């Protein structure tokens, strides 16, 4: 087993290095005649927050779904923590996925389960032999992280949008992943709640030393979180740089996003 | 977690209830089909099964005793049926019991009925062959019944017509007259005789004509003799007058009858008066006597003529007329 695939509990000692955790090379993906990704390449380094900007339908969600293996690219390689997710079988893919968190745009909390069951689900699924006591402890810790411990036995339908987003974040973080993929984390929230979510992401990022790809339209969010910003345009990586660099770019197409 | 366990208990109950229903259903059917009890086999051979099938019931003295296990063609007229019988009734079925194919209700399923016979015999043992009773199928029964019905219908139709005629017939009243009865009877007898004679003669004459046509025998020669022809003519004339007399008498009788009839139909009530009047009754009686006499005479003529085959052609027509006329008074 590659050394990068440590169990999450060993993660604490990680320091900022230039070790790449996600390497995307020459990725192609099309749906019917609609070309979404065309020769897209990206490398994400450890403890780095990369924000992917792009118009709606530009293929941002497709990109991160390919990273986690929900979609199979037509061509190209995706190395996640040293393993090629495009060529893994189901069991190995699950092993990689246990180290990658994914925060869905619509939260994707299971309607039929309580908050507790929602949080337990990935734990019991990925770590089959985990004890009941450990599960309890981790669920509580995850909810404390998002300050929603009192919702433990509530159903998702009883909670507000901001709370749901925070619980979804807690569920994403419960496995203490090395990489987190955020699909528009602040979309649909009021600006105050959106800032809270931003702060939460940053706080947890520092706490667990994770690397992230964040998809967003929200420039405040981008400004707060981004270490690096990627502009996805026509299926390609159009621009790559810090927030400041891109904000002051003279390129017309880049400027559109910062107005 | 507790809820989950509770749900599983409910689910378990639900599944068990379903399986229980299935088991009960199987058991109930099996009980009817003798699958779970001990049993033995009997055989019977039939010429026709009338739709008996495997699994049909076997009744012993009307009690459910088993089912038909298998059916096998032995040859073109024999079918062997194997019966699966409950052991409980084994000691009651004797070797001389009769097996017959019957029907549950009028049009229900076919069954095999095993009927005990009074004569003493041993109890059956496994695989014994029972004597088969010739079966009467519903269809056959219905067919016979239908024929019988038709017959009865035509008989009753005829009977009805007779009764109606008898009822409306004037003769019914006349027949009540004791004196008229016997005379009428005898005259009828005479008429009968006469017609018989006539028929005999016709036959004889017929034969003769054939011979004459062929120009054979004495008749051929005689017919050429003119003298003889004259005699013959005379004889025929005499005969004619005799039969004319008879004819007249018959007409007379006829007239009386018609008048009686007429009175009756008119409902004048004169009929009763007439009939009660002994004089008139006697008159009728006399005229009937005359009829009798006339026919008697005629009969004698005929008897004579029977032996004289030359008058055939003429006589035939005459006889026909007479018979027709004489028949009238009887009506």
């Amino acid at each position: 087993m590659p050394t990068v695939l440590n169990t999450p509990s060993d993660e604490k000692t990680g320091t900022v290095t230039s070790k790449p955790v996600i390497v995307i090379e020459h990725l192609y993906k099309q749906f019917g005649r609609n070309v979404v990704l065309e020769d897209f390449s990206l490398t994400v380094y450890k403890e780095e927050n990369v924000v992917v900007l792009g118009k709606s339908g530009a293929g941002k969600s497709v990109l991160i779904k390919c990273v986690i293996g929900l979609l199979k690219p037509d061509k190209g390689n995706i190395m996640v923590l040293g393993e090629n997710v495009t060529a893994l079988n189901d069991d190995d893919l699950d092993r990689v996925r246990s180290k990658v968190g994914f925060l869905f745009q619509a939260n994707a909390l299971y309607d039929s389960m309580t908050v507790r069951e929602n949080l337990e689900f990935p734990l019991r699924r990925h770590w089959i032999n985990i004890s009941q006591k450990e599960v309890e402890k981790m669920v509580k810790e995850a909810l404390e992280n998002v300050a929603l411990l009192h919702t433990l036995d509530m159903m998702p339908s009883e909670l507000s949008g901001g709370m749901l987003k925070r619980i979804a974040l807690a569920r994403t973080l419960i496995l203490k992943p090395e990489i987190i993929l955020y699909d528009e984390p602040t979309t649909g929230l009021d600006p105050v709640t959106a800032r809270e979510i931003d702060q939460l992401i940053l706080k947890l990022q520092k706490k667990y030393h994770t690397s992230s790809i964040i998809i967003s339209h929200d420039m405040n969010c981008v400004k707060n979180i981004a270490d690096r910003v990627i502009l996805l345009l026509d299926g390609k990586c159009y621009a790559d740089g810090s927030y400041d660099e891109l904000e002051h770019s003279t390129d017309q197409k880049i400027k559109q996003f910062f107005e | 977690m507790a809820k989950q366990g509770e749900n599983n208990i409910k689910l378990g109950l639900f599944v068990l209830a379903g399986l229980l229903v299935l088991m009960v259903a199987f058991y109930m059917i099996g009980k009817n089909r003798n699958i779970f009890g001990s049993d033995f086999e009997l055989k019977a051979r039939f010429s026709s099964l009338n739709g008996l099938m495997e699994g049909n019931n076997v009744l012993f003295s009307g009690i459910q005793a088993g089912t038909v296990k298998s059916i096998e063609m032995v040859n073109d007229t024999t079918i062997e049926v194997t019966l699966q019988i409950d052991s409980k009734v084994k000691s009651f079925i004797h070797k001389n019991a009769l097996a017959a194919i019957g029907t549950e209700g009028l049009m229900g399923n076919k069954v095999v009925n095993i009927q005990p016979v009074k004569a003493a015999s041993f109890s059956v043992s496994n695989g014994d062959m029972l004597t088969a009773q010739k079966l009467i199928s519903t269809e056959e029964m219905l067919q016979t019944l239908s024929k019988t019905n038709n017959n009865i219908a035509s008989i009753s139709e005829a009977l009805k017509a007779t009764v109606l005629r008898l009822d409306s017939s004037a003769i019914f009243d006349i027949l009540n007259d004791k004196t008229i009865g016997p005379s009428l009877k005898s005259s009828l007898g005479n008429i009968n005789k006469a017609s018989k004679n006539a028929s005999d003669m016709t036959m004889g004459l017929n034969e003769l004509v054939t011979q004459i046509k062929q120009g054979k025998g004495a008749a051929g020669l005689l017919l050429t003799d003119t003298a003889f022809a004259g005699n013959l003519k005379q004889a025929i004339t005499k005969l004619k007058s005799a039969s004319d007399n008879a004819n007249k008498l018959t007409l007379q009788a006829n007239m009386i009858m018609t008048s009686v009839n007429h009175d009756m139909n008119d409902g004048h009530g004169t009929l009763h008066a007439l009939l009660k009047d002994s004089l008139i009754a006697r008159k009728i009686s006399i005229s009937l006597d005359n009829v009798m006499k006339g026919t008697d005479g005629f009969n004698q003529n005929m008897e004579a003529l029977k032996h004289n085959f030359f008058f055939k052609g003429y006589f035939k027509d005459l006889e026909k007329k007479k018979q027709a006329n004489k028949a009238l008074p009887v009506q």
Partner: protein
Amino acid sequence: MSLITNTEDFLEQTGKISRFAGHFFSHGIKPRFEIKELLSQCYLIGYKSFPLVGLTGFIMGLVLTMQLRPSLVSYGVQSELPVMVGIAIVREIGPVITALIFAGKIGSSIGAELGSMKVTEQIDAMEVSGTNPYKYLVATRVVATTLMLPILTLLGDAISLFGAYIGVNISSVTSLRFFFTQVFQSLTYSDIVPAVIKTLFFGFAVGIIGCYKGFNSTKGTQGVGISANSAVVLSSVLIFIIDLLTVQLTNLIGLN
């Protein structure tokens, strides 16, 4: 032109459903088994449908008896009413009515549930959480419908026959014991066994169609509604087609 596209759509649908069902056999019933989810689905699909099936079964038995009675009376064979009702319920009406009620309740709920899970990315979330959604969601539901419908049908038949008993007793008097003796006298294994086996297929059809429609739900609440609706329609039609096939098949192998 529209006929051609309709035909193409129809064939494409049929092919996709076949593939989906094939996937059930090639992937769905392999380890690891989701026993816990299966049990909870059995509980929801089977136990929770029981009151509805029981009620409709009872009414069906009662009404059928009352409806059949006048025509039997006109033939003078009203004493055969239990036999006739028994055969009708066990062979045909019990399985088909139960399956249709089942399709209405369970087919639509599976279609809507999986549809909304698909639309709100819950299915993706499940996959990310190390769970094969096909096994966890589809296989469990299909197995549950396949196993639960026969049980529901058997219980529904029993309740239906009880309804028929009451129906018989409305206008004449029969003991429960004699009623059931009469019913079972005319029944054979070849009446019950094919009836039970065909409900397995009915259940499978309801489950697989519900799951297929849910899994292929298009975006939005409208898509979920369409999934639920078409799941019911299609599985109801399939129930009748399977019913027809079963009758022909049992005739063919001489079980009738």
